[in-house]
């Protein structure tokens, strides 16, 4: 029982763990997927799996937006950045993501003007103060960050700024969950639903998981106790023979989401027919592009984008990790050729990627398990 002293509510955690264990049917295995990278982080950091009976396995899903960006899109962004008089901007998480030959950081070292920003509004400010340059914001993220990109385009339009555009890579969570549910090599018993994404989209969009696939969904907060509570709620549903969407994180997530955020996304962006996800392949209607009405802010219409699909490095097994088929440490290059300092795959780049989270926190547990079983 690692990190037990760190829990402010250690007794509650133990009590929940006991209640979860009591709900396990003898001989049955349970697999739950947490979709959000923030949850993966909590699970490894606090050793949540150590609290669970062996019959419960947590599968880490594709909920880290940096991890699902295919290499071809990184190449496209770098190609835009290397045009004359372009300033390329993105979140810090994007800087070390490898493209087919280089990352943003490598490109910056050569000649491109790559800048890390906290907010797309910072990119807009750079555009205001550099009227002789064109400033591109490489937008990444699920529905959590899409409203901020939308609001920034609306702001740019209101101000009449014409040297700013968005290279849109926003992805949507529901089609990814559908792809996982359709995946033949994975049998799940339920989902720990993402917290922050649900702040925007609400809980209703998950109802198809319960209705069509007969799997329970519990939208969860990020504290260790939130995760344990959510697993308990999933187990109660299974024990009762129910499949419903429940909201464990109602103190932050409204059932209907943030209506205004959904409105601004719909005003400025529309679904792409299909989009490639690293590891999951092409998924239809799974990403957003800039609407015709905002074409002047669409980097893909302004610049010639190579759009070449690049296969992942052979050694990299991010795809299997993102689908939950492999645990991070089961990848051939995990911790040897691929580390947070020299990532081969995207799962090792972002601190919320399953591999980086496990590399930073999880491996100590495994070493201890090995030690304990060595006798």
């Amino acid at each position, binding site marked *: 029982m690692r990190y037990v002293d760190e829990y402010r509510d250690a007794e509650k955690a133990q009590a929940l763990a006991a209640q979860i264990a009591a709900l396990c049917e003898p001989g049955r295995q349970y697999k739950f997927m947490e979709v959000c990278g923030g949850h993966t982080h909590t699970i490894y950091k606090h050793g949540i799996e150590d609290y669970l009976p062996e019959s419960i396995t947590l599968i880490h899903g594709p909920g880290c937006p940096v991890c699902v960006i295919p290499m071809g899109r990184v190449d496209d962004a770098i190609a835009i950045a290397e045009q004359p008089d372009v300033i390329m901007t993105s979140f*810090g998480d994007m800087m070390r993501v490898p493209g087919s030959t280089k990352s943003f950081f490598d490109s910056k070292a050569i000649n491109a003007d790559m800048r890390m920003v906290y907010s797309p*509004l910072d990119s807009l400010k750079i555009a205001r103060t550099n009227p002789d340059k064109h400033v591109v914001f490489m937008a990444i993220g699920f529905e959590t960050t899409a409203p901020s990109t939308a609001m920034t385009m609306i702001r740019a339009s209101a101000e009449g700024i014409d040297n700013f555009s968005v290279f849109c890579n926003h992805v949507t969570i529901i089609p990814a969950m559908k792809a996982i549910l359709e995946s033949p090599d994975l049998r799940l018993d339920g989902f720990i639903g993402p917290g922050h994404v649900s*702040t925007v989209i609400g809980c209703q969009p998950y109802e198809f998981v319960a209705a069509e696939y007969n799997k329970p969904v519990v939208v969860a907060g990020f504290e260790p106790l939130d995760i344990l509570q959510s697993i308990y709620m999933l187990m109660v549903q299974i024990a009762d023979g129910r499949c419903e969407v429940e909201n464990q994180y109602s103190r932050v997530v409204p059932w209907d989401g943030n*209506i205004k955020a959904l409105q601004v996304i719909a005003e400025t962006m529309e679904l792409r027919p299909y989009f490639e996800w690293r590891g999951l392949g092409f998924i239809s209607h799974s990403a957003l592009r800039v609407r015709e009405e905002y074409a002047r802010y669409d980097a893909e219409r302004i610049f010639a984008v190579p759009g070449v699909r690049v296969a992942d490095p052979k050694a990299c097994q991010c795809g299997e990790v993102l689908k939950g088929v492999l645990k991070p440490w089961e990848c051939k290059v995990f911790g040897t050729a691929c580390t947070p300092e020299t990532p081969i795959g995207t799962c090792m780049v972002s601190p919320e990627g399953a591999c980086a989270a496990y590399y930073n926190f999880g491996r100590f547990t495994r070493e201890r398990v090995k030690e304990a079983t060595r006798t």
Partner: protein
Amino acid sequence: MCLGIPGEIVEILHDRVDLAMVNVSGVRRAINIGLLEDEKLEPGDWILIHVGFALSKIDEAEAKDALDFLEGIGQAYADELKALAESQIE
């Protein structure tokens, strides 16, 4: 990028109703509150901030829990705060 950071509103800017001055872990920054226009935010209210935008109004207890969680994360939170400190939203 994915971290939701709690902040306390210290001032609503009357010439720009979509902006508020917010105290985030001791850093005072302008944050866009346009996505919470129906919440009638006031100084003293707590919000959860994503990449410069307030996405939800939360209570003070939740804000404290969220801060404890973030402080436990370590480097990723430190990086996010550093980026926020350099941010110049207007």
